[in-house]
């Protein structure tokens, strides 16, 4: 569908439900793109079975959207996604993946590649919301060419039984990245690994992680900033424990191979402040309302 009012890709279970394009943006299923564009094969990390391909060729004047749902039982999605943004463009992308009904024994295994070419800027809001009995593994790699910028937010509002999140971002000369990973866990085994590789001179990266460790949750996070050139990076990793049955392990790591680089980190694990909780209760909020407000504030960065 050409010349639509917005550009989006919508998949339910294994079926592509709708694709809409504008003239500046080509949207295809990944298997179709693999066949149509030989050049795309060097960008895909594997031959795709399903997934989306978004190629931003010129400046669009609308946000781009992707939506991938699981609605049936026993669905295992193996997504291979690719976003290519040509030079000098500024785009906003909203991606939603989640259940829209109670689903059982589902899996969403996504391998994504995002290429942001020279002088382009991408704002990407990636939202997940899953029913408990699912296994979810988003694994994304980003390449930021010279002077490219990425503002990436990954947020899970409802966590599945198992959640494994991986992000690797490589920044070339002058590229800038800000990533935020915000996860509110309940009854979840959550593993996350993110790495920002500052490869080019003058590149910079900031990684901010906020995790809520609720009832029966086990969080293991490893976050890395690797400065290979004269660059700047900062890692800010914080977790709030709200239940006795929760466990958290945060491992921030900074690596440096260049004397002109500056990389810093901070990490903390703490409980909800009694002072804040009681203050809000003395404003008439119930304990649960107060806790939810504090948690939403913690995740709002």
């Amino acid at each position, binding site marked *: 569908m050409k010349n639509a009012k917005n550009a989006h890709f919508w998949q339910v279970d294994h079926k592509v439900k709708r694709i809409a394009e504008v003239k500046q943006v080509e949207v295809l299923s990944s298997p179709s793109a693999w066949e149509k564009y030989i050049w795309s094969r060097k960008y895909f990390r594997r031959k795709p079975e399903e997934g989306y391909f978004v190629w931003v060729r010129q400046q669009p004047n609308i946000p781009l959207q992707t939506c991938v749902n699981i609605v049936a039982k026993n669905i295992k999605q193996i997504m291979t996604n690719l976003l290519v943004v040509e030079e000098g463009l500024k785009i906003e992308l909203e991606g939603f993946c989640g259940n829209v009904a109670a689903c059982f024994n589902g899996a969403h295994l996504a391998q994504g590649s995002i290429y942001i070419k020279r002088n382009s800027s991408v704002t990407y809001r990636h939202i997940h919301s899953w029913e408990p009995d699912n296994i979810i593994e988003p694994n994304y790699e980003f390449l930021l060419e010279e002077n490219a910028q990425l503002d990436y937010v990954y947020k899970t509002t409802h966590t599945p039984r198992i959640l494994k999140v991986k992000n690797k971002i490589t920044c070339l000369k002058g590229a800038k990245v800000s990533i935020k990973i915000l996860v509110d866990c309940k009854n979840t085994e959550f593993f996350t690994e993110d790495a920002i590789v500052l490869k080019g001179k003058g590149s910079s990266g900031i990684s901010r992680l906020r995790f809520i460790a609720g009832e029966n949750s086990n969080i293991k996070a490893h976050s890395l900033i690797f400065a290979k050139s004269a660059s700047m990076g900062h890692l800010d990793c914080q977790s709030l424990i709200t239940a006795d049955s929760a466990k958290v392990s945060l491992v921030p790591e900074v690596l440096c191979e260049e004397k002109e680089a500056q990389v810093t980190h901070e990490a903390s694990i703490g409980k909800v402040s009694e002072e804040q909780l009681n203050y809000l209760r*003395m404003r008439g909020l119930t304990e649960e309302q107060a806790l939810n407000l504090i948690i939403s*504030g913690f995740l709002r960065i």
Partner: protein
Amino acid sequence: MKSKHLLKITNLHASTYEDKKILHGVGMAIEKGKVYALLGPNGSGKSSLAHIILGDPKYEITKGKIVFGGKVLNGTHPEERVKLGLALAFQHPPVLKGVPLEVLLKIISGSEVEDKFKIAPKLLSRDVNLDYSGGEKKLTELLQILLLKPKLAILDELDSGLDIRNLKKLVDIVKKELIGKKTSVLIITHSGKILELLKPDMTSVMVDGKIICRNKDYKGILKTISKYGYEKCKKCPFLAS
């Protein structure tokens, strides 16, 4: 017979949960629509008393009782007490990072934020108490109290850290929106200058977790304190029983 007292505190003893004794037999009664003042030096237990009245879980009542609007408050949660009509403006309110003031006000008021008092229009989008000046904290505390529409408003050190312009602004709002609407007010202070502006109906003095003096003549009490300090209060002719 219905009591004329909105709040009645009898022989109240309280400790922190770390077992530090804070109050040693406090008695206090506040009538509907009246303005009360509680004076005392730093660390005398004034703020703790306010928090205990509101049911702060940090404290434990070991003896005595608090009755508000005919209902015994001992053992009730803070939010229940707020529903009954109690409200406390904190001396040192905590920062709520990531919570814009307008979000909190909306929850408190149960509707869209309407700062009809024009107290904090510039602060609405900022996180609660984050990098606020002393005056901004006091103003926003008062705004929250007004939105709760209490029967008894406890204002803890509302005057501390305020310049005279802001103090007058706050006092005008308290007069118009609280006292003018027959809300009982308990002013907690250790300096006394706010008393000159609000002219309380009754003033008490607290030292070492006890009310040691109570009188309608706030000027007389202030005069004694300024001349002899709080220690003299223990010997003054107005000594509370």
